[in-house]
């Protein structure tokens, strides 16, 4: 049977196993939307803004490990998808974003709703396709999913001129049995010689640290990571993107590292003699000043992306390969090796880390303490949330202080439970991402921890949540200011709060939630916090927006001293360096 370009697209998406498409229609996408209407393989989710579509597809992908799919129209539809594409690109999330384009003969004529989507998105996609012939649609879809999901994953754009989905032009549907691109052969297996070298270095270490990032989660290698450290018993730290790749309740876990990492994690990195970097990329929120980074450490660096190796910090033993395959090879080599790690040395290293933790570690029991202040401390909100959800929720966040508080105080024991925009730092990510997670896991608790600044950037998606009945819990940590901006202004700009406050013009979030058909709750006192959260989470079938007013003067600590600081230079509390 012959199919139109639009129907070829449907068939190809079905054959990729797509279950949800997040999108928003418009002129150039109308043929495609008509094809969507006539198919049953997947559900189309109508968002309220294309940014929401890309973030929802992104959240779906991060929670499931499957590629997310978004569909937008040309022009403004395409440009609105750009922030979501950049977000996914920075965090290596496999997305396929399909954009309608004006008819082929109008391209380049400044026609209505025309924009050069391929050109605009070029720096923030892993790859992109412009459909030249309708019959190519099945092949392009196959290649796009292949590219998005293999190697270092990332978003792929497919721009489809309207005439290529013309319902009156029909083509044969052909699906290739396997995809092979001569110009794209990502490395899977590590080099055996490098694995031997790495093993030798690791086993001769006295102060080793495992520094594991988002690549462990993207590469589905958390079991291998755990198995590796069953052998080594060395301290482990996670990047913001890596949280959940190693169980937070494990005794070797030091918490997050970097800008707002724990004291012990940052001290361990600075004083390590071997750093085992796994699926992490030494970005500037980790290393502080690169020339002062871990002065005595040899670096073993495992990554699927060769360009991430020795980009910022020179790797002594680079290993290019899929994280899972590389760790499996490393484990095998360590087991086979005649040299054994010096457990006595490692034990005293672990003891040193315990001392650091005792000295300046985070207080995870703030919520149990009686404070004089009636104001709610934001860290306590996260601690109570952890208690109420038994640590089992899928937690999305926006960007700023609340994001760091979740990273510090919600203990993620499983991968893919912590969903946030780490690389790009996109405010507005949390709510639509939570929608994507909820579609994937309707029976799981999905929480969006946000701030009154971030939530207003994609607030319109509350309407989508009503349409599809998504009982997400939104915890709005409301300090009536752009908290992280304000913190920097407090610390570096003499407390001049330039354009970071708006306390006299905030909406009534309770009424706002209600006007979208949801439940709104407001808490201002510490004494009511737990009760309110309990009440909110007891409402299983409703979206509840909990507006929690917190102490606006609270800062996130520890914080690396910059510029010209190393990882051991930290602010540990207000006006106090460690």
């Amino acid at each position, binding site marked *: 049977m012959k199919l139109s370009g639009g129907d070829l697209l449907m068939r190809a998406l079905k054959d990729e196993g797509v279950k949800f498409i997040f999108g928003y229609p418009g002129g150039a996408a109308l043929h495609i939307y008509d094809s969507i209407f006539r198919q049953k393989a997947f559900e189309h989710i109508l968002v309220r803004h294309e940014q929401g579509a890309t973030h929802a597809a992104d959240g779906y992908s991060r929670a499931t490990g499957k590629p997310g799919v978004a569909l937008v129209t040309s022009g403004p539809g395409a440009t609105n998808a750009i922030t979501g594409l950049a977000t996914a690109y920075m965090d290596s999330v496999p997305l396929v974003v399909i954009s309608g384009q004006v008819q082929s003969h109008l391209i380049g004529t400044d026609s209505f709703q025309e924009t050069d989507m391929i050109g605009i998105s070029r720096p923030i996609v892993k790859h992109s396709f412009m459909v030249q012939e309708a019959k190519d649609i099945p092949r392009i879809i196959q290649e796009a999913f292949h590219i998005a999901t293999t190697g270092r994953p990332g978003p792929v754009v497919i721009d489809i001129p309207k005439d290529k989905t013309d319902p009156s032009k029909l083509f044969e549907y052909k699906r290739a049995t396997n995809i092979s691109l001569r110009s794209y052969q990502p490395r899977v297996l590590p080099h055996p010689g490098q694995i031997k070298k790495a093993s030798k270095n690791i086993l001769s270490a006295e102060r080793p640290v495992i520094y594991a990032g988002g690549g462990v989660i993207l590469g589905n290698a958390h079991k291998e990571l755990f198995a590796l450290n069953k052998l080594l018993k060395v301290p482990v730290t996670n990047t913001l993107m890596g949280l959940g790749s190693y169980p937070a309740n494990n005794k070797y876990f030091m918490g997050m590292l970097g800008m707002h990492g724990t004291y012990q994690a940052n001290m361990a990195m600075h004083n390590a003699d071997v750093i085992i970097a796994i699926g992490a990329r030494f970005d500037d929120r980790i290393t502080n000043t690169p020339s002062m980074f871990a002065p005595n450490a040899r670096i073993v660096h495992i990554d699927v992306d*060769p360009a991430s190796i020795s980009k910022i910090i020179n790797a002594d033993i680079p290993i290019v390969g899929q994280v899972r395959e590389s760790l499996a090879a490393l484990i095998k080599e360590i087991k086979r090796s005649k040299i054994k790690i010096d457990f006595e040395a490692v034990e005293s290293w672990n003891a040193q880390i315990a001392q650091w933790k005792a000295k300046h570690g985070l207080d995870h029991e703030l919520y149990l303490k009686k404070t004089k202040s009636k104001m709610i401390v934001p860290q306590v909100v996260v601690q109570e949330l952890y208690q109420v959800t038994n640590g089992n929720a899928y937690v999305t966040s926006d960007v700023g202080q609340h994001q760091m508080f979740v990273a510090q105080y919600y203990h993620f024991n499983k991968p893919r439970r912590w969903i946030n925009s780490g690389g790009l730092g996109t405010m507005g990510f949390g709510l639509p991402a939570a929608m994507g997670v909820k579609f994937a896991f309707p029976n799981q608790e999905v929480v969006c921890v946000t701030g009154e600044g971030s939530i207003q950037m994609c607030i319109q998606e509350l309407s989508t949540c009503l349409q599809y009945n998504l009982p997400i819990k939104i915890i709005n940590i409301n300090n009536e200011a752009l908290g992280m901006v304000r913190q920097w202004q407090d610390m570096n700009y003499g407390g001049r709060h330039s354009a970071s406050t708006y306390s006299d013009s905030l909406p009534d979030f309770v009424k706002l939630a209600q006007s979208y058909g949801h439940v709104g709750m407001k808490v201002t006192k510490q004494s009511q916090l737990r009760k309110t959260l309990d009440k909110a989470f007891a409402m299983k079938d409703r979206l509840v927006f909990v507006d929690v007013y917190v102490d606006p003067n609270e800062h996130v600590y520890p914080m690396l001293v910059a510029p010209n600081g190393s990882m051991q230079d930290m602010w540990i509390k207000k006006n106090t360096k460690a």
Partner: protein
Amino acid sequence: MKRILSILIENKPGALARVVGLFHQRGYNIETLNVGPVFDGTYSRMTVTTRGSENDVEQITKQINKIIDVIKVSDLTEGEHHEYEFILIKFNKFKQTIKIQKILKPLHGKMLEKNKDVIVMSAFGPSSNIEAAIKSIGKTNLLEISRSGSLGLHEGEKILKI
């Protein structure tokens, strides 16, 4: 230090822009650029000259390699290599003709057009010699210059192929 990168790239719409764009995105400059389809025409060979430290070039090479349409990248300057450039020049200072012809003689200078208005000549040779020739002719003596940018191949048996 000057580097010459040879790149094999799929001959597809937009592929060139991906490579050129990357230099700007990652904060590197392109000094010269040459591109054209080779062999069966399904792919092209690009020659890009840039400046940077060893680390810079390692990073830019890796990043170029990541572009899906790029099949292979090689830094010719890592080893012995041939580097040539082709130029066309136009001038109308007829008194200078003998001087210019003399300068271009070791660079295979050839008269392509000569009439009462202008003279057009071609030349080719190692890029540094071409640079030196243009300098000694003097900018003020020329109406137009068109340069091919560097072209390059590895010396000996080493080849860049699919």
